[in-house]
C-alpha cells in the first residue's frame, strides 16, 4: 500500500530528513519515490532499507553525476530518486553498513557544497530584497517630490519577504557552518 506524505525540510536540514526517512523505514515504510516536499512510501519489512541522501556537485543528468550514480548501483546501492541536485539512495540493511562517506575529506567537501548552496540562497534573497526595498524607497521619494504616482506597496512586501527568507536561511544554516568548522579543525589533527 502506498502512502504519500508532504513534508518540508530546508536545505540545512538534510540530516534531519535522512534520519526521518530511516525512522520511517524502521516503522516499515520504505521510501520509493520523491517529489518536491512529497514523499511516497510503500509498506514493507521493518528496517529493510537504509536511506542516505546527498547534494551532488551537478544535476543528476550531468555525465559526472550519471557516472557516480552508476558506480553506486554497481556497489549494490539503489537510486530512489532526485530533486534538483539532491539524490536519494537506499541499500538493504542486511548488506554491509551503508554510509556515503567514511573519510573526513569527503564529508567536509559535501558540507561545503551544502554551505555554498545556502550562501547562494541567502545572497540572492538579500540582493532581490534590497532591490525591492530600494524600489519602494524610490516610490516614496517620487511622491515626496510631488509626483502623482500612487503608493505601491508590492515592492515593500516582496522586499521584506526576501530579507526575511535570507535571515531565516542564514539562521538555519548555522549548524552546517558550525559542523564544517569543527570538521576542518579535526582535519588538522587526523584524517
Amino acid at each position, binding site marked *: 500500500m502506498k502512502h504519500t506524505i508532504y513534508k518540508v525540510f530546508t536545505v540545512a536540514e538534510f540530516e534531519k530528513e535522512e534520519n526521518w526517512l530511516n525512522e520511517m523505514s524502521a516503522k516499515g515504510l520504505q521510501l520509493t519515490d520523491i517529489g518536491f516536499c512529497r514523499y511516497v512510501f510503500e509498506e514493507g519489512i521493518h528496517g529493510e532499507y537504509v536511506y542516505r541522501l546527498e547534494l551532488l556537485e551537478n544535476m543528476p543528468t550531468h555525465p559526472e553525476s550519471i557516472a557516480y550514480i552508476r558506480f553506486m548501483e554497481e556497489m549494490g546501492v539503489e537510486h530512489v530518486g532526485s530533486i534538483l541536485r539532491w539524490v536519494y539512495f537506499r541499500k538493504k540493511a542486511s548488506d554491509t553498513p551503508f554510509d556515503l562517506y*567514511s573519510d573526513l575529506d569527503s564529508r567536509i567537501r559535501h558540507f561545503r557544497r551544502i554551505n555554498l548552496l545556502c550562501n547562494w540562497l541567502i545572497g540572492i534573497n538579500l540582493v532581490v530584497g534590497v532591490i525591492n526595498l530600494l524600489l519602494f524607497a524610490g516610490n516614496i521619494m517620487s511622491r515626496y517630490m510631488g509626483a502623482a504616482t500612487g503608493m505601491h506597496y508590492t515592492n515593500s512586501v516582496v522586499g521584506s519577504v526576501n530579507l526575511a527568507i535570507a535571515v531565516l536561511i542564514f539562521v538555519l544554516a548555522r549548524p552546517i557552518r558550525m559542523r564544517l568548522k569543527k570538521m576542518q579543525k579535526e582535519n588538522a589533527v587526523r584524517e
Partner: protein
Amino acid sequence: MQESIALTEAVFYILLSLYQPMHGYGIMQNVAQFSNGRVNLAAGTLYGALNTLLEKGWIRPEHTEESIRKKEYAITQSGRAAVEAELVRLQELIANGRKVVGGKRI
C-alpha cells in the same frame, strides 16, 4: 592545504587491493578483510578515491570479461612506487614509535 606525502588509510588499502584487478565492490570487501572490519570504505569515499587515483595515474581501468558489467581497476607502476614509498614512511614511524614507547621513558 597541507603539502603532505602521507597516504590516507583508505587510499593505501585501495592501492594494495589493486595489485590484482578488482572492481569497486571487491575493493570494499577486500579492505574490510585487510583491516579485520576496522576500515569500512563507504561508496562515496571509494568513488572519490578511485577518481583521484586515476587522475594521478596510480591506477588504471582494467578490461576483463567481468568488467563489461562492473568497471575494474588495476595498479600502475607509479602506483606501486607510491605504495613502496609509503611503506618506507610507515616503517620510520613504527621504528621511532617503538623506540620511544617501547624503551626508556624520558
